[in-house]
């Protein structure tokens, strides 16, 4: 199977799938309440496994295997036929199921509502978290100053 750069509409899907995967499971649970019965058809039950993470020799050379990370995946289908997939970090089956559900719903008429109520809050959380960390690190940046030496006088 060959993988290529996804077309622009897929780029959007890539973005939300990544955001859902990186979300804190508890936060996603707050934003996405349990779906009413009958729920979507589960195509693949939430399953815990691993993914081998690769690095590159010297940061830019050939790949090598760094070690694995835990990942949970899930696939489901809505009544409308929209299929949602999720591969999310960690071992939370609820996280994977909710991420797959949002992925499927984002392909339906509810996309705008979910973007506002789920994706945008997640994006804000993540941006806040990252900015807070980056700002604290930035405050530890060394400002060098050169002492005036005797021969400079």
């Amino acid at each position, binding site marked *: 199977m060959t993988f290529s750069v996804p077309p622009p509409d897929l780029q959007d899907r890539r973005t939300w799938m990544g955001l859902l995967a990186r979300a804190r499971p508890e936060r996603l649970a707050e934003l996405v309440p349990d779906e009413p019965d009958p729920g979507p058809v589960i195509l693949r039950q939430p399953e815990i496994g691993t993914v081998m993470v*690769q690095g590159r020799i010297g940061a830019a050379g050939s790949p090598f295997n760094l070690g694995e990370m835990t990942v949970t995946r899930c696939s489901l289908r809505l009544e409308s036929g929209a299929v949602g997939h999720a591969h999310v970090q960690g071992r939370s089956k609820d996280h994977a199921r909710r991420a797959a559900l949002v992925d499927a719903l984002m392909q339906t008429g509810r996309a705008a509502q979910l973007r506002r109520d789920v994706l945008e809050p997640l994006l804000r959380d993540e941006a806040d978290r990252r900015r807070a960390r980056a700002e604290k690190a930035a405050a530890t940046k060394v400002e060098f100053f050169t002492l005036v030496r005797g021969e400079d006088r």
Partner: protein
Amino acid sequence: MYVAVKGGERAIENAHALLAEDRRGDTGVAELSVAQIREQLRLAVNRVMAEGSLFDPDLAALAIKQARGDLIEAVFLIRAYRTTLPRFGSSRPVDTGTMACSRRISATFKDAPGGQVLGPTFDYTHRLLDFRLAAEGQALPRPATADPVAGPVPHITSFLNREGLIETDRPGDDLPPDLTREPMELPAPRALRLQAITRGDEGFILSLAYSTQRGYGRTHAFVGELRIGTVAVEMDIPELGFAVEIGEVELTECETVNQFTGSKTEPPQFTRGYGLVFGQTERKAIAMSLVDRALRWKELGEDDTGAPAQDEEFVLMHADNVQATGFLEHIKLPHYVDFQAETELVRKLRAEGAARRQEAAE
């Protein structure tokens, strides 16, 4: 003669119950939660993730609790758990150039673009015990904030590249060998060596790296750059036909710049050692890059000085602490039959020796 011996079930059961009680310690002291270990013993968690070769802070914290703080035992638990999980696939190689750095320093370039960012480091602390930590509920100092540098911070060694003073790694996309799937074969390519070292025992890798600094396979290493931070992990999803981010991991990356006067095959230039390890684990990452560089002697046409750190078999076959502790500790388990055979042998040799001496005397 082989005699099967049964017994000890009750002793074992009782020993496990005693272990559980000792693990808990004084019940007058509050029980430690997995979340507390994850948050407050984070460097222990990082070490267990790196050597357990599985990035999952909650699992590593649980393993540390179960192992009563014995980190090698915790690594063992993680490795054992890992074997129960299916592997969904491999990620794309992570791009450490896009790392969101919480620490980034260089020992070679003072004024590197992006600056020297110290981050949460023990460096420059006085290593005096802080008795204020013995009292609980102390007010936390509030870390200062400043405007961060926008965008990714470039790798410092790329500046040396501009002048061609440092060797460049040829990018490639070959499927790397995996020692968790195929038994390690020697000589091992660099990719396999790095996998073995990044999951190897920190103490062992540290000592080997130190030995190179003391002259056993000296490589004149400077830390060109050390960075710690998070990177996104991306994987190709077959059902979708494209790659998505599946999460992010914290990594420590070390690039050493090593003096190299040239050899029969290579011009004088700086050469590189590389370390990349899960979590904030900088001692391990620095040690890894020194050992990586020492093991490259053949490829760079350097002399084999017979140093342990240059001996690939010695390094790679003894770096894994789960293998090492398994073999080491098994000798305490019952070897009654083996030992009985050895005893018989010694008795026989003594009897023969006595008979010979008797004969000679007569």
